[in-house]
């Protein structure tokens, strides 16, 4: 009893400090913009019941939340069908150890059929729902929906590049001599000792038209006139990959370091070349680290605001930046709040998937 009380206390604290601000934001998102202080109506001054009856969903309709929710539901449906329903149905229909050619062929056909049924179900559900949702999906201002999509695109692409650069770094660290590893680990963590903002500003100095990169390339004679990198999406990718690289390297390194070196030797002993040993042994065993790293980069990147506003140009549309502009430039708190609430809803999916991955890894360790 005492112990529960003890645990309940910090949890209650955390819950309150999540729920109260969220409740306030949710309330503002349901209000209407007004030239007042605070810049929305209704407020508590009008009395609680009047305030409640004054709340509506028109901000959500304005930012095209219906479309977001619909797209979101479609993605969730696909994930559920292929991650949960498909493997279970296949397991139920296909025998575990195929004997001979006939069984293998039958198993492949069954798996294909199940997959096709899956796709059919998804398409059917969407086709049935979409006409009914047309009014709901109608988007008055395409900016917000485009910003969500563009954020998603930037997050996916930069996660991919971070993985592409982070994996070899983590691999090199895990393969380095034992006495070098703490130093290398320190070097990965070192950037955290300085302010994130200053490091992003430093990139302005590097990437700008008169920046070090252009000077260097001009000096080498590789280019004849300065490249425009700053204030483009390319600069945003550079900034995101640079900033989030440690979040990718550390979990992959943790997974690789824990791996027994003799596994790769065993694979080579059994006839693998170095490359196939990597694909068959190292890659699958580092998968949990890769997934964890990808989520750790993807989730914060989706709502990233500082990097696109400092390094990006006017054509870089990210939902974090839109949120900022809505709040401080337009002083439209209700719409900004609605955007924030939608962003939170979208982030729930990768966060839940991330938790699931961590859970699976913990169970595998046991």
């Amino acid at each position: 009893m005492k112990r529960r009380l003890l645990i309940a206390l910090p949890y209650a604290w955390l819950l309150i400090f999540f729920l109260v601000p969220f409740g306030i934001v949710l309330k503002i998102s349901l209000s209407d913009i007004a030239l007042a202080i605070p810049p929305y109506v209704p407020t508590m001054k009008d009395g609680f019941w009047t305030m409640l009856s004054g709340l509506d969903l028109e901000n959500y309709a304005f930012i095209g939340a219906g479309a977001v929710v619909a797209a979101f539901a479609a993605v969730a449906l696909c994930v559920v069908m292929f991650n949960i329903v498909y493997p279970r149905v296949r397991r139920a229909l296909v025998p575990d150890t195929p004997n001979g050619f006939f069984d293998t062929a039958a198993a492949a056909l069954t798996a294909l059929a199940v997959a096709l049924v899956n796709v059919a179900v998804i398409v059917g559900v969407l086709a049935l729902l979409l006409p009914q949702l047309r009014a709901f999906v109608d988007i008055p201002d395409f900016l917000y929906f485009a910003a969500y999509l563009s954020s998603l695109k930037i997050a996916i692409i930069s996660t991919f590049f971070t993985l592409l650069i982070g994996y070899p770094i983590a691999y090199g660290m895990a393969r380095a001599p034992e006495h070098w590893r703490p130093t290398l680990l320190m070097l990965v963590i070192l950037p955290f000792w300085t302010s994130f903002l200053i490091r992003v500003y430093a990139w302005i100095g590097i990437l700008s038209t008169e920046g070090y990169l252009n000077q260097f390339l001009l000096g080498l004679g590789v280019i004849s006139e300065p490249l425009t990198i700053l204030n483009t999406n390319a600069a945003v990718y550079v900034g995101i990959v640079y900033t989030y690289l440690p979040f990718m390297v550390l979990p992959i390194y943790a997974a690789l370091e824990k791996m027994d070196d003799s596994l790769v030797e065993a694979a080579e002993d059994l006839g693998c070349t170095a490359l196939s040993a990597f694909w068959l042994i190292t890659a699958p065993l580092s998968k949990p680290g890769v997934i964890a790293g990808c989520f750790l980069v993807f989730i914060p990147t989706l709502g990233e605001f500082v990097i696109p506003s400092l390094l990006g140009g006017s054509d870089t549309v990210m939902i974090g930046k839109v949120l900022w502009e809505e709040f401080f430039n337009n002083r439209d708190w209700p719409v900004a709040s609605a955007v924030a609430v939608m962003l939170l809803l979208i982030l729930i999916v990768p966060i839940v998937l991330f938790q699931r991955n961590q859970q699976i890894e913990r169970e595998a360790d046991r």
Partner: protein
Amino acid sequence: MRMAQPRPDAVFAPWDDPSETPLIQFKNVTKRFGDFTAIDDLTLDIYAREFFALLGPSGCGKTTLMRMLAGFETPTEGTILLDGVDIGPVPPNERPVNMMFQSYALFPHLTVWENIAFGLKRSDMPKDQIGDRVERMLKLTQLGKFAKRKPHQISGGQRQRVALARSLAKAPKLLLLDEPLGALDKKLRHETQFELMDIQESTGTTFVIVTHDQEEAMTVASRVAVMVDGNLAQVATPDQIYEAPTSAYVADFIGDVNLIEGAVEAGSTGTDVAIKWSATEEPIKATSDTPPPAASTVQFAIRPEKVAISSEKPDAANVMEGKILDIAYLGNISTYHVEVAPGLIVKAQATNTRRISRRNLTWEDHVYLSWTDTAGVVLTE
């Protein structure tokens, strides 16, 4: 201690047959890691169908020798021949050699079945034969029930068998076993030693085992190589290693031994050697096929179980008087530590054929130790 090789027709001893060609030949192999010499100018022949044990303390180079056979290390100097072919430039994945790792190195993301099939899938074996081969390996190692389990879902002994099945699946010419039983508890280790021997017999594969456990080496091996500091101290059958060690190091490393230092007395005839070990006591009478020259310093080595202990003076070639200092009671046998001269303790072993209350020897007793003139060996190294 050692099971006789079940070959009633002929003794398996290709190393004594000059017409046999060895499967593996180490020719003046040296391996250095920086300044450290792991293997020092080593020459060794291993024959087909042998169960060959590399025995030695940690750091003696036995694992390096094995890793050179597997292809994970290349010799700094010298050549290694397998079936007459220099395997120096052959990478591990192309050698007809498989290895069972000390840590077993089972692939944790694959099932037992997939682990065993792993090597076969990399070979040119037709797909439909892989299943049969895996099933045969599962049967050989009695793992049929566990085929679908992952390595972390089975016990240590079962993991050891999966590792063995996986390394045997490709039917290698040579199987290397790196401390294969190190992670098992004592009882399971004993059972598994006999299983290993049965499997080696039934598959006819050449096994090379690395171990620091002398009992294990003696039990399973047809020949044992005792290694020290990158050199071979002795290569012989287990009984020769035990009964006729060529150096004090080997005698001391294998089993329990009494080493008595002395000088060879002049006037020995034929194979007889008399060793003066004390100014006042009678010299030790022993025999040697190659008697050392008179006055040279030698070590007389005798196993405790070959020393008899009694309270009355027996009639034997060698008799020593002494006082019991210590008794180590091991159940089936007792070891008596007897001080025969100031500072010289000789161990004698007696089988406890009677219950403890009927035995008459105890601490501080005055006793006689005795042994025949052929019981011990004279060592010059």
